[in-house]
């Protein structure tokens, strides 16, 4: 659905739910997920409804994911890094993660 512009940075590899995904330096986690065709990054704490990155500017909190073991990170505010482990956040966050 999304197409990259020509001037993308150097390639990095991260994992989303254990699956290797190719992204570019300068991508945010949210952008990398959208570019990789991920259709949802979390389910809501109450009804379990699926959510994907939306505002991409730190406001809507719909792109919450677990990054390197820490839950409820805003994917649109975190730049990708080589070897980063991103997980879909399912329902309520687990305390301590």
């Amino acid at each position: 659905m999304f197409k990259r512009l020509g001037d993308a940075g150097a390639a990095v590899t991260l994992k989303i739910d254990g699956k290797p995904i190719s992204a570019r330096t300068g991508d945010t986690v949210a952008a990398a997920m959208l570019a990789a065709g991920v259709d949802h990054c979390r389910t809501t704490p109450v009804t379990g409804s699926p959510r994907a990155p939306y505002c991409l500017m730190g406001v809507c909190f719909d792109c919450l994911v677990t990054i390197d073991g820490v839950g409820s990170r805003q994917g649109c505010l975190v730049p990708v890094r080589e070897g980063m482990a991103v997980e879909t956040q399912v329902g309520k966050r687990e305390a301590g993660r």
Partner: protein
Amino acid sequence: MAGNDYDVAVVGGGLVGAATSWGLAREGLRVALLDEGDRAVRASRGNFALVWVQSKGLGLAAYAGWTIRSSNAWGGFSDLLKQETGLDVSFQRPGGFHLCLSEKELEARANNLRRLHNQPGIVEYRTEMLDHGQVARMLPDIGPEVVGASYCPLDGHVNSLRLFRTLHTAINARGVTYLPSHRVENITKEGGEFRLTTAKGEIRAGKVALAAGNANMQLAPMVGLEAPMRPERGQIVVSERLRPFLHYPVVTLRQTDEGTVMMGDSKEESTDPTGLTLGVSATEVERAVRQFPLLRNVNVVRTWSAIRVMTQDGFPIYDESESHPGAFVLCCHSGVTLCANHALTVAPMIARGALDTSLVAPFSARRFHVQEAG
């Protein structure tokens, strides 16, 4: 009775007033509930939602018995509300903890409880002192700094915002006339009936029950009663929704049925409900993290302050007027814990027209006049 618009006018639409109105309507009375508007300073919107027994009654033994009566009635009360409204206020009574973060705190806690339970005339109930290992068996996520705790199996909690909504749904279904934006400015008794001057005109009723929280201080003298209060500010910090990890309420910390963790129990001398003292919130959270280290990286989503309804000695006031028969006053800090009593015990007394002194005499405001109390 002829000419009265209502049998009873209840003043104050928070938890105390709504529970009392519900109880009066169950007795078949025509009830008007006079409330302020949306901007009322309302403890019912800001409270911590414990149905709490341990610690209650040091200095007034009868308060322990009164609290346990309500705690014991709470289960049946929430069932009644559910039958009438279909709403579940999530009352749970797994027992509750008071966690101590040093040997000194633990010793002070044990001494307090000893003094409480040694009072003459106090009702028998169990509060245990537990060491770290005993606490960890029930609360596996406590941190190493928790040296021990007191535990009382009678303690519980509820979803108090839903309780507030449920009571208003229930009184509406029972035909109580709810009158918002009717701030009461004056009360007189003429020709055997009470006349309440409000921002939106006069309301007449055969009886009046004052349940206006700290504002009872101004209202009570209008009908020959008194309510000496000392409002106090508390702050609460709320986390994002988390998977259930805390299956017992702690006096300063609890996980709601919806997953958020509330951290609170601060006390400040202030009557400003709009201010927040950041240092106070920080201290609440710092202690919460020492109690449960897994909260360290959890996100805070809300924080607020609210004004506690507090009498000058912290114990409830229930009184009826000698100079203005038919006028009653209800003041208490624990509007959630005592909600079942107000609905099921105090309201029927008001409906009958006389407080049952065998139950509530210790809570008369006459106790503030040592010389005259006799």
